[in-house]
């Protein structure tokens, strides 16, 4: 967040906080050491809760939590950037797991004042970031040992993949296409989760020159010369290869020539949850079928 906006927001929060101070102190809904009614906000966070085997404690999730399928059956508290303070209160949670970026801040300020325990879960798109995420969830749920084991497992998987990928001689240029509206591609540049995944899988991000998710003109796509186009699929929304290669910018790329096209589930590919090492391995195996095995050795 920009400093001045942060200041602006702090101002809001300070005033809101002052009004709410009385509640925090006297809150009947005190934080419990062993939370039983957990609301998980953020797809990867929810996945971690399941991976830790603590899903019985979940009361509700946000709309980005759709894996595993059972999570989709839980009550939904809305989109993680548009949470409702009273909506969250109404499910009587004793713990809120909030992935970084959840909001709006005003709703969170009210919830903090209510005395509900809130665990902020960092969301950094790197192997270390994923381990930190797992540990944060484990701490909040009071299952540090299980979390440590999971984090170790994840770290080991990443290391194994890195060893496999090190054998790649000619790295492929991969272009991640977030969306393709009216033939205009929005691609994943440096600093995005897509960029991190491409690098983990031993690829080179063909759009590393741009920052964040940005639209890319046809000519720039041609110049980026990707060997593989990577797209994500959401339940019910996929970008077919024919659409991608039909647009003029993509038609002349090496990817079109060699039909280099990989489509993966959005949360699986970009979520940075417990399945991420496997997702990175899947991607690597798609890029280098002769070098990387789909199943870890």
């Amino acid at each position, binding site marked *: 967040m920009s400093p001045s906006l942060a200041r602006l927001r702090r101002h809001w929060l300070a005033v809101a906080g002052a009004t709410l101070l009385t509640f925090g102190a006297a809150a009947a809904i005190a934080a419990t050491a062993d939370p039983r009614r957990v609301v998980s906000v953020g797809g990867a966070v929810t996945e971690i809760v399941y991976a830790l085997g603590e899903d019985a404690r979940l009361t509700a999730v946000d709309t980005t939590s759709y894996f595993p399928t059972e999570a989709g059956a839980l009550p939904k508290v809305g989109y993680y950037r548009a949470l409702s*303070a009273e909506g*969250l209160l109404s499910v009587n949670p004793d713990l809120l797991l909030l992935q970084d970026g959840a909001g*709006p801040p005003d709703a969170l300020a009210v919830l903090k004042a209510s005395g509900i325990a809130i665990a902020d879960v960092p969301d950094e798109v790197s192997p270390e970031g994923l381990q930190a995420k797992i540990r944060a969830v484990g701490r909040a749920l009071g299952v540090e040992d299980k979390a440590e084991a999971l984090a170790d497992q994840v770290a080991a998987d990443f290391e194994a993949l890195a060893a496999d990928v090190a054998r790649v001689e000619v790295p492929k240029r991969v272009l991640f296409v977030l969306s393709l509206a009216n033939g205009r591609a929005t691609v994943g540049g440096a600093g995005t989760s897509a960029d991190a995944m491409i690098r983990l899988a031993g690829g080179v991000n063909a759009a590393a020159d741009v920052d964040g998710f940005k639209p890319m003109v046809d000519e720039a796509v041609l110049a980026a010369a990707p060997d593989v186009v990577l797209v994500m699929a959401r339940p019910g929304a996929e970008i077919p290869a024919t659409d991608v290669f039909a647009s003029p910018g993509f038609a002349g790329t090496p990817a079109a020539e060699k039909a280099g096209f990989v489509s993966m589930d959005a949360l699986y590919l970009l979520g940075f949850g417990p399945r991420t090492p496997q997702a990175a391995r899947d991607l690597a195996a798609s890029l280098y079928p002769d070098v990387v095995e789909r199943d870890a050795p």
Partner: protein
Amino acid sequence: MTEVAALRRLRPSGDRTGRALAVTAGTLLLALAAGVLSVSSGPTGVGLGDLLTYLTEGAAAVGDRERLVLEAIRLPRAMLGALVGAALAVSGAMMQGLFRNPLADPGLVGVSSGAATAAVVVIVLGAGVLGPLAALLGVHLLPIAAFLGALVNTLVLYRLATAKGRTSTATLVLAGIAVGALSGAVTGLMVFGASDAQLRDFTFWSLGSLGGATPARILAILPFIAVVFLAIPFVARGLDALVLGEAEAHHMGVPVQTLKRVVIVCVAAASGATVAVTGTIGFVGIVVPHLIRLAIGPGHRFLLPASAFAGAALLLLADTAARLVVAPAELPIGIVTALFGAPVFLAILINHRNGPLSGE
């Protein structure tokens, strides 16, 4: 009601003051009822009983949770909803009077998009170029910027669409599209250049609902909305005369240029303040004044206050629905007002297809 009937007998035929008074009082009651409903309903199930206990026996008589829900969540939200709804409806009615056109609505003709663009500029440049300003104005920067953005678009629109004191609907709508598109382009440019953190702030803002109600925000937009309400008695007669035409209003002693300036500032203030806090909420500004006009006629002396009350009631009801329908999540309130407003808007269009629209 008997007093109203007696009043009507005393008054000459064609005078709708009696009915206007009754309807205005009715909309006030409706707004109060909607306020009570809004404060006493929500997904936590804290209800009317808790509210009554809270009001009669004091804050200590209800549990902390009930008190939190009532004081920290619902009351600010209801206050913000009432203010925003009233401001949207009044600014819509004023703008329609200014343009002498029942279809002029800040949301439809690009005024709100001007406010939105300014808000986005503040969000994206708040750290850099506008840093000192942001430090100086703090919580007030966003409403002020949105007000200025709305003001620029209103002025441009008025210049473009009004010739010789007449506004053609076609020009108004086309100019509105052009002005809106230009604002949209600037917004797009800002979003394009934004960092991920700025984008996140932008997302929070653009998904804006009444959920962002805090005392600080209410206070930040209150001056803008207060200006609009305070202006009502001073612009009502002039806007009536303006319906007959600019020259006619001048002949009847209305200082037309001053009136137009005041109304433009009011429209921009209301649009800017509401957009800064809640994002764009459509149709309230067009539907509410239209329904009130059907009930009591176009006289602004009652149209403006009755629209304010009815606008507050409508937004409170829409927000209550938005909070309950998909609980524990909530619908964006703009969706609810559009679901209700778009059909009424179409009805106005169809009604006017055969009748004369101003300036054509």
